[in-house]
């Protein structure tokens, strides 16, 4: 009886020791945020939906490092091939005030991760989640929706439009209402 208890105890300890060694070195990075409540529309029958936020949004949205990484990745993952440097081409413009699937960083993140039915591919299995957040943050800066203190201030290539930290808010184009 007593011996049995000892065996059980040592087995439990051994198992616990295994768990102790587990480390979450890249939390959620490759797999992405689990549940992401990013509605494609603002229309909800009957009521007003409280605005949703992913806990990663704030960490990426106004961060200079992430924005600059996003700018680099925007080229590396061939986003420029379709969206040019924000003016669009095969895909829609990203520097104007028109957002087919929502302008929040959560919506843009969902668009890149899951794709959209009229031509936007899904990059779920191509781009790690944190990098998708960086891309989403950079895309917002193209429409003048990132703090100018954080948005990229220069281009390594031919200047094709004012740097992101000088781009006006697409909704007002810098004019007062």
């Amino acid at each position, binding site marked *: 009886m007593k011996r049995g208890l000892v065996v059980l105890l040592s087995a439990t300890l051994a198992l616990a020791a295994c768990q102790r060694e587990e480390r979450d070195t890249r939390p959620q990075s490759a797999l992405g945020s689990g549940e992401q409540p990013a509605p494609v529309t603002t229309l909800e029958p009957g009521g007003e939906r409280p605005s949703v936020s992913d806990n990663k949004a704030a960490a990426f949205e106004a961060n200079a490092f992430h924005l600059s990484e996003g700018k680099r990745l925007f*080229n*590396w*993952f*061939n986003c*420029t*091939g*379709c969206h*040019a*440097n*924000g*003016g*669009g*081409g*095969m*895909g*829609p*413009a990203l*520097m*104007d005030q*028109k957002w087919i699937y929502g302008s929040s960083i959560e919506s843009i993140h969902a668009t890149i991760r899951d*794709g959209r*039915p*009229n*031509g*936007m*591919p899904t990059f779920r299995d*191509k781009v790690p989640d944190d990098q998708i957040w960086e891309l989403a943050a950079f895309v917002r800066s193209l429409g003048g929706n990132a703090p100018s203190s954080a948005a990229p201030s220069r281009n390594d*290539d*031919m200047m*094709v*439009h004012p740097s992101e930290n000088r781009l006006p808010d697409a909704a007002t184009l810098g004019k007062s209402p």
Partner: protein
Amino acid sequence: MRATERGSRFSLGLVMLASLALLAGAAAQPAADTAIRPPPAAAPPDDGQWTMPAKNYASTRYSDLAEISESNVKNLQVAFTFSTGVNKGQEAAPLVVGNTMYIVTPFPNIVYALDLSKPSAPMKWKYEPNPEPAAQGVACCDVVNRGAAFADGRIFFNTLDGHTIALDAGSGKPIWNTQIGNINIGETITMAPLVVKGKVLVGNSGGEMGVRGWVKALDAADGHVVWTAYSTGPDKDVLIGPDFKPHYDTDKGKDLGVTTWPPEAWKIGGGNMWGWISYDPDLNLFFHGTGNPGPWNPDLRPGDNKWTAGIFARDPDTGAAKWFYQWTPHDLHDYDGINEQVLLDMNWQGQPRKVLVRPERNGYVYVLDRTTGEVLSAQPFGPVNSSKGVDLKTGRLVVNPDKKTGTGKVVRDICPTAAGLKDWQPSAFSPRTGLLYIPHNNLCMDEEGVEVNYIAGTPYVGMNVRMIPGPGGNRGAFTAWDVATAKPVWNLKENFPVWSGAVVTAGDVVFYGTMEGWFKAVSARTGEMLWKFKTSSGIIGQPITYRGPDGRQYVAILSGVGGWAGAIVSGDLDPRDATAALGFANAMKDLKDVTTPGGTLYVFRLP
């Protein structure tokens, strides 16, 4: 001041313009028959129908109808209109077979049949193929379709998501539907098929997505693929065998489609066939171009990049290549080689020759011997500074080293642009005047090569481009080119690129459209403006003319701006980014101020 500064960089261009201006003032030649005509087998006597976009196998886009003439065209009126219901670039040519007109729209590629025997041409049937919406995301330059083809009671057309479909022309019921393209590797189909000897010839698009180009022959009876000829890779894939006898030494050798590329690069090397095909029944050869090599950044693909940016002559029964000529070896500027080839028989330096005339993207009107692929002549038809001519001994384009692009290097004022001095917009040839009527662009560009990663199904370009108006400031032109003397005869300046096709008639009237929406008729002899009509949207379509069931002559055009040049409007792009639409939007900033998207058929006749 800016214009003067830029002008000084264009010595070649200015000389060209000056000669154009001079010739424009020259006396008009009489409308007598010239000795230059299409081979009769490829251009049979006109029956008043329009059964393929290029009118006939020789691709003359010439009609024998003469009811509408230089003297009465000013009275043209709208006979009827029809909304296609699709507000994207309308590049297709309507077809007229018997009492029915057929039109195919841009994505979602709806086919309409209109009953011409009834007043106002009501709809007879429509067919919706429901292509995959995701295909829109891999179509390089708007979601266009360049038309259908009729043969043996069937309408053949392609869908953006890579299907070729045969419909019963009478009922609109599908007979077969074959998927030949894969959008997940970036493949789409935008070209108009050509039906030759019971085979439907189709090529793919995707030169900006690292798609390997091909042309396939589908059995017109049941749609199965009879043969596939690739534009890159080993000889057996390109259908190069013992019959292959190219004229120039640079095209001779084993597996050049592999050895003129870095290892494996040919697999994602482009050479897509999204343009025009002509067919010579006497020689039993069809002629098709091949698109640009991918990616645009040339540093990633040292070598001649065979068999891209060139032209093949092939046997339609087997696909076997007979000869090849490369317009632009190791292309530096996206000079796709897919333009139309007009088949003509003419005296060349005293000898009767079977020739093929090609106003090419790189800026030259080529005259090739279509039996051998030998270049007889290559003269620029507008400002060109990316090259210094064509060496007729070797057939090779003489590249201007000052305009060579590369990674991390900005090269300015390259003429013509990636869209070419002339893009897909097809020209027309009149045997009455001996003139080729060329709708084209007048643009220059700055380019910078950048690094690019190949990710299947995404763009593979590696070039920052911004386009600007060419010398003179007019972004487009319509040039009448004397095939016999290889010189322009007259030239009309247009504010925007002339992205529409042309048609010429025995009434000596030429029709074309502008991106503002004007549909114009000019004298085939002098270029004098005779009539114009403002349609609801910019025109980038292909005009046709036909004899209606009432025996009267009609002229038809689809209006609806878009395509690469008009993507700024049809795709609602933001021109504050100079690289939008691969740099084209930068030259088209004001297009949004003059036109809006549309999709309407206009048909005209005399009162």
